[in-house]
Every structure is written in structure tokens, then in C-alpha cells.
């Protein structure tokens, strides 16, 4: 058998042997011994790694619950951590409770000079934030909008820009005008005659999108090591990556489905591992990363991220009994009966249920001998 060691072990072994200045014959001996050890440590065929992973993640999970609420709130922004976050990741939830991004910037922009300006450019701005007063002028049949000068100055938006945006967003059915400073008057256009429309507009105006990346509700520039990065609440990886000053290589989000969409299934797998491992480390717990890798691999095996739920990977199981043993047993059995499904009893759970040897460990003699 070829003595091939994983790259990492090989490298660290070479390094130590170089440091000790071993002769070639001794090197060979060391290699052999290391390989022997490594081979002995390998997981055996038929080992029930899934159960081991489940227990290894589950047991620290019981300690996590208590710690959950005390550590909520990282860097002035509220981020879900602890058990709720872990459940969110492993269930493969599409809507996570606190999406955040870490936006890295490329060279000239990351020095922190215009960081506030860049951050404000990314933040989604809606009319609601810019309006200080809004009233209907019945005599003129117009809507008078008073803008908040302070916010305007802070975000470096002027009234003229808003007028332009509004005309575009309202599809020309209204006429907008400004006195140049802070008052915008919106009049009914030629097509619209009904005064009721003004009342409706008064409400809908607040939700009009003005500028920035949709979905990013908060921005916070922080210093990380030598450079400045922007941490956000809300996530929109696709649009953020389109900005020319954003680092395409390191910018990430905690929304696994956005990563899957933009970078593909393999990136999603890495993201699941990173996110889950981060949760466990934050709690000061120690879970071997291999367990999380196994979970992530299972979630991504079909080319799409699937959670460990009865709608996700459990649904993919071929055995009726195995599916029924997870959740909602009656429904699975009824449906199987209706459709005349067959169970060939290939896997573990169904064999446990009917008291037969399970195909793990010594239950797999077919691996080394011929069985009839």
C-alpha cells in the first residue's frame, strides 16, 4: 500500500524531521511509524460516524442553552448566538433571525479615510428616515413633505436628488418639486385626478426606496487589525459585491443561502462549517471540527443546502420506517400505505425497529467475507 499521508501531517512531519536533521534511513523509519499510527487512527468502515457526531454536537449543546441570552449583542449590534443560531444553521432556515455581513474593502478604501461615507452609501435609505413632517395641502391639492435637514447632511443627500428618485419611483403619476432646501411638494399629475390618491401616497411614500443596497438596515464601520471593515445588519451579498470598492475575496455574510446562490454549493458547505464552529467556539465549548464537517457534507450532498428537518435531508431517505422514526410517524406511514411503498430494510433505524442486526460495525460482515 502506498504510504500517502494527508498534506498537513506530511508537512509538519517533514518540518520536524528537517529541524532534527535526520538521516535518510531514519527519515524512512519515522515515516513508516507515522503512517502506521495514522492508519490505526482512521475511522473503520462501518463505524457509525453519524451517531457519534450527533452525540458530540448534542452534548455541548445542552450546556449552551443557559449561556444563550447573556452574550447576545456583539459590537453594538444584536446578533443571534448560541443554541438558537446553531439550530438555525443546522435546520437550514431560509430566513435567519439576524443576517449580518462583514464587508471588506480593497486597498485605497480600507484605510478608514472615507469609511463613513462608504458605509452610508451601502446602507439602505428609505423616505421614512428623511421625512420630519408630512402634510396634505387641500387648497393646492398637494402633499408637502418637510425633510429632516440633519439626516440629509449626515447621509449627504440633497433635496434635488430625492425629487429625481421620487419621480422615477412614482412612475410619473405625480409631479414633484422642491424649493431647493428641505421642502418637497408633490402634486397630482395629469393622469391622476382623485384626491384620495394623495392620502394613499402619504402612507406609501414612507416606504419608497431612495438609495443604497436593499436589505442592509444598519452599517457600522469598525477597525479590524490594520484595516477598516464594515459590519452590517441585514445581508445582500449579490448587490454588495457589485460595488467597485468591495473586496470580492473576503466579504462574507452569515446567510448560507445567499452564499450558495452567489458562490455555489462548496462555498455553502464551508460557510456552514465556519458558522457552526464559530457558535461553538464563542460558547467556549470544544467540538471536533470533523463532526461539523460531516454534518455540512450531509446537508450539501444533493447539490443544494438542505436542513436536518423532515422537509430537508430526512425526506431524502428511501426507507419509510426511517422517515417515520424522525418526526410525524403516522403521516409517513399512512402516505406510504396509500402509495404502496416498499421498504427494503437497508439501513440502521428500520432494522432497529424490527429487531434485526443493523448494518454497522460487526453487522457488516459482507465487507470482509462473502455472505449469502
Amino acid at each position: 500500500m502506498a504510504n500517502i499521508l494527508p498534506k498537513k501531517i506530511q508537512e509538519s512531519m517533514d518540518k520536524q524531521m528537517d529541524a532534527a536533521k535526520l538521516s535518510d534511513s531514519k527519515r524512512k523509519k519515522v515515516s513508516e511509524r507515522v503512517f502506521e499510527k495514522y492508519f490505526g487512527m482512521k475511522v473503520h468502515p462501518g463505524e457509525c460516524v453519524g451517531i457519534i457526531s450527533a452525540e458530540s454536537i448534542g452534548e455541548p449543546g445542552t450546556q449552551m442553552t443557559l449561556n444563550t441570552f447573556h452574550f447576545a449583542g456583539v459590537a453594538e449590534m444584536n446578533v443571534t448566538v448560541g443554541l438558537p443560531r446553531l439550530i438555525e444553521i443546522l435546520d437550514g432556515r431560509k430566513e435567519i433571525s439576524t443576517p449580518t455581513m462583514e464587508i471588506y474593502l480593497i486597498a485605497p478604501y480600507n484605510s478608514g479615510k472615507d469609511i463613513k461615507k462608504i458605509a452610508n452609501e451601502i446602507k439602505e435609505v428609505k423616505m421614512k428616515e428623511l421625512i420630519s413632517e408630512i402634510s396634505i395641502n387641500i387648497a393646492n391639492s398637494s402633499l408637502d413633505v418637510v425633510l429632516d435637514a440633519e439626516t440629509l447632511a449626515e447621509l449627504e443627500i440633497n433635496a434635488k436628488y430625492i425629487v429625481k428618485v421620487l419621480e422615477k419611483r412614482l412612475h410619473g403619476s405625480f409631479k414633484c418639486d422642491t424649493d431647493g432646501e428641505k421642502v418637497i411638494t408633490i402634486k397630482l399629475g395629469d393622469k391622476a385626478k382623485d384626491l384620495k390618491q394623495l392620502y394613499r401616497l402619504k402612507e406609501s411614500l414612507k416606504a419608497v426606496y431612495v438609495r443604497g443596497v436593499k436589505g442592509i438596515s444598519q452599517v457600522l464601520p469598525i477597525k479590524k487589525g490594520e484595516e477598516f471593515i464594515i459590519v452590517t445588519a441585514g445581508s445582500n451579498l449579490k448587490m454588495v459585491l457589485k460595488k467597485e470598492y468591495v473586496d470580492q475575496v473576503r466579504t462574507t455574510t452569515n446567510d448560507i443561502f445567499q452564499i450558495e446562490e452567489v458562490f455555489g454549493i462548496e462555498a455553502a458547505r464551508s460557510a456552514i462549517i465556519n458558522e457552526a464552529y464559530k457558535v461553538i467556539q464563542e460558547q467556549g465549548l470544544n467540538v471536533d471540527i470533523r463532526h461539523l464537517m460531516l454534518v455540512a457534507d450531509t446537508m450539501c450532498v444533493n447539490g443544494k443546502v438542505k436542513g436536518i428537518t423532515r422537509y430537508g435531508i430526512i425526506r431524502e431517505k428511501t426507507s419509510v420506517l426511517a422517515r417515520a422514526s424522525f418526526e410525524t410517524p403516522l403521516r409517513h406511514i399512512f402516505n406510504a400505505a396509500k402509495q404502496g411503498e416498499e421498504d427494503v430494510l437497508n439501513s440502521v433505524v428500520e432494522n432497529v425497529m424490527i429487531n434485526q442486526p443493523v448494518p454497522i460495525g460487526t453487522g457488516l460482515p459482507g465487507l470482509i467475507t462473502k455472505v449469502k
Partner: protein
Amino acid sequence: MEKKPAKHILVPNHTKLSDSEAKQLLEKNNLRREHLPRIFISDPAIKDLDPESGDIIKIERRSPTAGVAHFYRVVSRA
């Protein structure tokens, strides 16, 4: 010539196996194509490889435990 954008840290190297390489892999491990994990034909990471259904994609993952780990996925249509 347009500069190719740098790859994201989360995206490992994807390469398409040639027919002979694919055959060798399957024979060596006593596998059939349907045993392999899947990757969608529309996956953004293999966009440039112009994949076809049934191709095998080799993925060189950076692994925290092994340094580099090779993984294979078969291209599947939706």
C-alpha cells in the same frame, strides 16, 4: 483582455475530470456515478468549466484537518 475576478476564500478549486480520469476514479473506488454527491449544472462555481450532465467535478478543498482534501461531485441537471 478582461481580468478574471479573484476567487472568494470560501470557494475551493473546481476542475472537470477527463473521461479517462473519471473512469479510473470510478473503477478504483468501485463506484457508479449515482453514488457520488451531486452539484447542479447551474452552480456558480463551475460556470466557467461549461459542464455537462454526468461530468465529474474534482474539488480541492482546504481542510482544517488534512490540509488538502479531494472531493468529487457529479454534475446533475436541476
